[in-house]
């Protein structure tokens, strides 16, 4: 920011004011607010637990041990965080272009469905098989999300509603496929009874993601590295490239974008497609990393958790990495809750509370920052 500090000598009558900074006390206040609102969120969850006769302390201890307490737990956290991060990145891209994609659950399912179809059909070395699964899953997710773009940009239908409705259609497409022997339904030995929840055949080993670490009871797959790598790439693309610049312009002022020759429909539908592609890829990573087959209810809330992770990250792209790890940890922690006799569904409530707890103080910080700026340089009369 040093370049910004022009001196009057350099630039005629320009008044140089130091770059805007809030006093430290403001940041401390926001920090305190963040701690307080997190405490309030945890308090709400504790209240919920106490009311239903569980011990909050036991639950929180179980959550911590279950998410970071052992190598098994850490592996679970990271394996969950990978797909969550991918979904969050996609959600972020859409949000930057001014669109809210909430159809990740469906996009994950459709991505995984086509991924498993390809993975079962090809017989190739691991590298190629994985590449094909990933590419197909991403393409399928992108196409599924693009249905909403078509409605948005040719018919004016809100993408918030259409992406959501498409989730339920997507689930039925998956269900249809795994219930048809001539499609993807599992081949069962002659005479055996169909399982209650139909599923596809498992992927051959060539379709499994490479293992990063392995031990008794755990296997860390490389999904998290793929996701973190893509996060870094995407953060660079958004901040530094023409594409990222145009995307943000469209998101903030579509008319100004059009004036400078950028088509909001083109950029927006591209963003929604990329958003769907990342969710589809998350489906592919889930498939090749941990699940190895597709069944009814495959997406299992990964879509929602990724979306929430993106909301927590807000305007800071790379903040999706820690926030996805947090949501991965919550998910891993919920896995061991059943052993304590408490329903793991409490985690769903905690996740939503975390989003509220993080969003409010940041909103406050942004407003203070803007106000400080305005006081420094005069008011914009809008």
């Amino acid at each position, binding site marked *: 920011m040093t370049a910004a500090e022009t001196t009057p000598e350099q630039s005629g009558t320009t008044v140089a004011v130091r770059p805007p900074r809030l006093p430290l006390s403001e940041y401390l206040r926001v920090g305190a607010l963040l701690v307080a609102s997190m405490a309030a969120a945890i308090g709400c969850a504790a209240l*919920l637990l106490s009311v*239903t*006769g*569980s011990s909050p302390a036991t639950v929180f201890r179980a959550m911590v041990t279950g998410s970071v307490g052992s190598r098994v737990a850490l592996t679970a956290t990271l394996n969950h965080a990978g797909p969550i991060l991918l979904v969050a990145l996609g959600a972020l891209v859409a949000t930057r272009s001014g669109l*809210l994609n*909430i159809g990740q659950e469906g996009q994950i399912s459709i991505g995984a469905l086509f991924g498993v179809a390809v993975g079962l059909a090809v017989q190739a070395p691991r590298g190629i098989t994985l590449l094909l699964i990933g590419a197909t899953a991403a393409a399928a997710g992108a196409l599924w999300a693009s249905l909403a773009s078509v*409605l948005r940009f040719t*018919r*004016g*239908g*809100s993408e*918030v*509603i*259409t992406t*959501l*409705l*498409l989730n*339920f*259609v997507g689930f*039925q*497409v998956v*269900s*249809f496929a795994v*219930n048809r022997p001539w499609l993807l339904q599992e081949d069962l030995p002659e005479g055996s009874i169909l399982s209650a929840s139909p599923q596809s055949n498992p992927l051959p080993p060539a379709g499994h993601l490479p293992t990063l670490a392995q031990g008794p009871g755990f296997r860390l797959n490389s999904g998290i590295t793929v996701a973190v790598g893509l996060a870094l790439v995407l953060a660079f693309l958004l901040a530094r490239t023409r594409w990222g610049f145009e995307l943000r312009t469209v998101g903030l002022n579509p008319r100004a974008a059009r004036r400078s020759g950028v088509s909001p429909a083109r950029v927006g539908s591209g963003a929604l497609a990329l958003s769907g592609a990342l969710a589809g890829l998350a489906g592919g990573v889930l498939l090749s990393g941990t699940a190895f087959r597709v069944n009814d209810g495959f997406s299992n809330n990964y879509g*929602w958790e990724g*979306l*929430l992770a993106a*909301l927590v990250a807000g305007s800071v792209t790379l903040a999706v990495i820690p926030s996805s790890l947090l949501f991965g940890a919550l998910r891993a922690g919920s896995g061991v809750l059943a052993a304590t006799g*408490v*329903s793991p*569904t*409490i*985690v*769903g*409530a*905690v*996740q*939503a*509370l975390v*989003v*509220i707890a993080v*969003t*409010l103080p940041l*909103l406050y910080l942004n*407003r203070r920052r*803007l*106000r400080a700026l*305005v006081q420094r340089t005069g*008011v*914009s*009369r*809008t």
Partner: protein
Amino acid sequence: MIDNITLIVDSSVRIAATLLFAALGELVAERAGTLNISVEGAMLSSAFAAAYGSHATGSAYYGFLIGVAVGIVVSLVQANLSHRIRINQFVTGLVLNLLAIGVTSFLLAEVKMAPVQFGLVRIPGLASIPIIGDALFEQRAPFFLLYGLVPLVWWVLKRSRWGLELNAVGENPTAADANGIPVDVRRRQAIYFGGLLAGISGAYLSVGLIGAFTPNMTALRGFIAIAAVIFGGWTLSGTVAGTLLFGGAEALRVSLPALGVTITPQVLIALPYLAAIAAIAVLSQRRRQPAALGQTFGRGIS
């Protein structure tokens, strides 16, 4: 054959009623320029609260009232987050929906309950009309609220000062502001009204229609209600027609297999959602939406 038709009409109307309660509230909220997606969360929370309330009090009526109250509480949170401190209204709604799913699923797993269901009420005479008699005049008690609510919403939108101001706020908030109408206050009130009706809808679903609570039992009905408002071109009659259409789609899903018609179950389950998407595709541009729908209003920076 007549019996079958009667059956389908009856179940269409019953399902449509759930949608219509929520859609009436959403219609009012959207006329004021808010697109309130937490209607889903409000329905789900109130469905649970009504079920639990009826179990705790032993009365379907008290349960119903408790459910409605919870619906209003959800809308209070939504309105004050989105139209007081101005967090994006979709984000607010989304988080509330997820919170509602999380809390209700958790409570359901932890709490044992036996909800009390409203009994059937039959209006003598009218209920004997062929085909539509059962559907319109023999239903669970809260259903009959519709006979008051539909005219009430008509009156609110067409005749009342409050409705006039809501319309102004939804069409041109700047002009409304210049006329001294407090824009955000009216929008919050419209959301409260939406919460009241979403509460009725959810409570009717659990202690009226079904008589039980199941995890995520609203299954996006709140969004189908929003789609019905869009389908109806933001008019009252269109909204009623939209809920009947979507109710009919779901009724077919339930009743066709019972009638021996074999259609792929997945297609049937997806039918209401596909119908809603089709409605948006066909109708969202042909009808005029409130000009300021989904936009925040501010006189300047705050």
